[in-house]
């Protein structure tokens, strides 16, 4: 369902040219749990943004469920992101001065769904992501890093997307919180969601059924993995 062919992404800012991706190709099937691992600066986030239909590659092709994403117009891209993709940003990207509940409901705006239904769904997703009920009405800037991460995950689940993309979801968390969050991903995967998560920690990557290693904008290794659920 996901297919990349020779993805290249070049950033040009002023005179500086950065080749973040230098020709990445792979396929990911429905229901897989894939880790993308690599050192900092290797191009993981760049790749993830392209997979999430948030950014276009400089060249190469990216097919999602048979659609060539770079050929879609702005509205079609929005619809695609809303209906198929749940994205957990490395920097959380919550709306400032906004309640947890509102942040989670954001993707449901203009959906025509009733307020009760939205509330119900948002609460479900928050519980699923391990968020304490007492914090639902807190403002986003009154949360700890782990709590923001859970809100970000809950938001990515709200439209029941078939693919969940998470960029370093445990990057800022302690071991205990990391475990709760990884449990949530494992559970989602069991329910049939395709999970792609980025990490630079080997024990997090080890939870997946497949590990893609990236270095300097190229796939270094792409191999199945026997998940090791006991480490984390």
């Amino acid at each position: 369902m996901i297919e990349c062919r020779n993805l290249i992404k070049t950033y040009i800012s002023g005179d500086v040219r950065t080749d973040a991706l230098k020709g990445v190709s792979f396929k990911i099937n429905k229901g897989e749990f894939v880790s993308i691992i690599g050192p900092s600066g290797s191009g993981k986030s760049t790749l993830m943004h392209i997979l999430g239909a948030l950014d276009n590659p400089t060249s190469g092709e990216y097919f999602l469920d048979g659609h060539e994403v770079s050929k879609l117009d702005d509205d079609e891209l929005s619809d695609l992101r809303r209906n198929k993709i749940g994205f957990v940003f490395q920097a959380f990207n919550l709306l400032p001065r906004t309640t947890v509940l509102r942040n989670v409901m954001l993707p449901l705006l203009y959906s025509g769904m009733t307020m009760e239904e939205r509330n119900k769904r948002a609460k479900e997703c928050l519980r699923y992501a391990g968020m304490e009920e007492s914090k639902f009405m807190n403002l986003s800037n009154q949360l700890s890093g782990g709590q923001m991460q859970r809100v970000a995950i809950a938001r990515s689940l709200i439209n029941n997307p078939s693919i969940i993309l998470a960029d370093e979801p445990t990057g800022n968390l302690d071991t205990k919180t990391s475990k709760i969050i990884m449990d949530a991903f494992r559970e989602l995967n069991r329910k049939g969601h395709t999970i792609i998560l980025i990490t630079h920690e080997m024990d997090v990557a080890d939870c997946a059924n497949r590990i893609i290693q990236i270095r300097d904008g190229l796939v270094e290794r792409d191999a199945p993995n026997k998940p090791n659920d006991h480490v984390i």
Partner: protein
Amino acid sequence: MIGDLFKETVWSLAGNKVRSGLTILGIVIGIASVIALVAVGQGAQNSIAKNIESIGSNLIIISPGSQRVGGISQGGGSSETLTTDDADAIKSEIANISAVAPSVSKRYQVTAKGNNTNTQIIGTNADYLAARNVAIGSGSFFGDSQLKSSAKVAVIGPTTSEDLFGTDADPVGQTIRINNIDFKVIGVTVAKGGSGFNNQDDIVYVPLLTAQHYLSGNSYVNNISVAAADQQYMTTVQSQITELLLRRHKISDSTQADFSLMNQNDIIATASSITGTFTMLLSSIAGISLLVGGIGIMNMMLTTVTERTREIGLRKAVGIRKIYINLQFLTEAVILTFLGGGIGIILGWLASLVISKLISLTAQVSLSSVLLAFGVSAGVGIIFGFYPARRAANLSPIEALRYE
């Protein structure tokens, strides 16, 4: 959908109280000051025009002093070139005039029964009533015998009467003291409703000779009011008066005349050129406030662009279509400007009312100033509120999220 749009907008405005408040403030200041200042300017202009109209349309006023320069009489009343004899000559030699009233005027302290007021004393004759549209309310005006005998009698305006004798009192028969000389009040004029600059109800009339004898101490007059019998004779009467006075004053070159003539239209023109300047001044101040308000709005909108661009990036990232994002930001800008505009209009209008009360003139809120002020502020608010948002909504979500 519309419900969502509206809720999102209100929530966003309420969630950024400082930004919303300051933007509204900018709009309010701009609009309110323009409305109030223009209203006062126009009010002043109208009030002056009305005062002048109330003095009569067939009126020609002859003042001593050099010829008018650029429509403004130079030092009118300061030089002593007109005499009672000039007035008598006009009356006897020129046809088609209904009244000739020479007058002297000066402000004095007037006292009665321990009250005192500073007011305009006018020494004149009975023709003044006809020339200047003055009517007697109670008692009578002085007649020829009182004029000739320099009788110490006075006719007072209703405002003066009130100041000296209180409301509802009948001053006829009472005594007032001007410059330490007792005058007997023989009449009260009807209110003309003049106000502010030139209150024709706060006035004391005394016989001309009396004024010259006891107050000014010479036989010159400050001006001569002449009423033409009809509007149609105005031009001829004016040129005949000029001819007559030039001859009497032995001046051959009319540009050297030591007197000047003005009719009501000249006075209105002069006055409106002055009030026009005044209105212009007020309008410039208003314009500056509008500019300052506009810059405030713009500044507020632009300083939040970074945060808002990220917010827009996020909204797009979670799959909200561009059109809804544009609509939301447009609605926000419209609500802010209309809220600010509404408050500004009310405030400007209230300010005009208060100023009217304070300086006793009727400030007039004009629709054009409301529209102009509102248009400019709303334009600035909507352009600077909406344009950056529209630009941000056209970026890819990642570009927008990275914006700084």
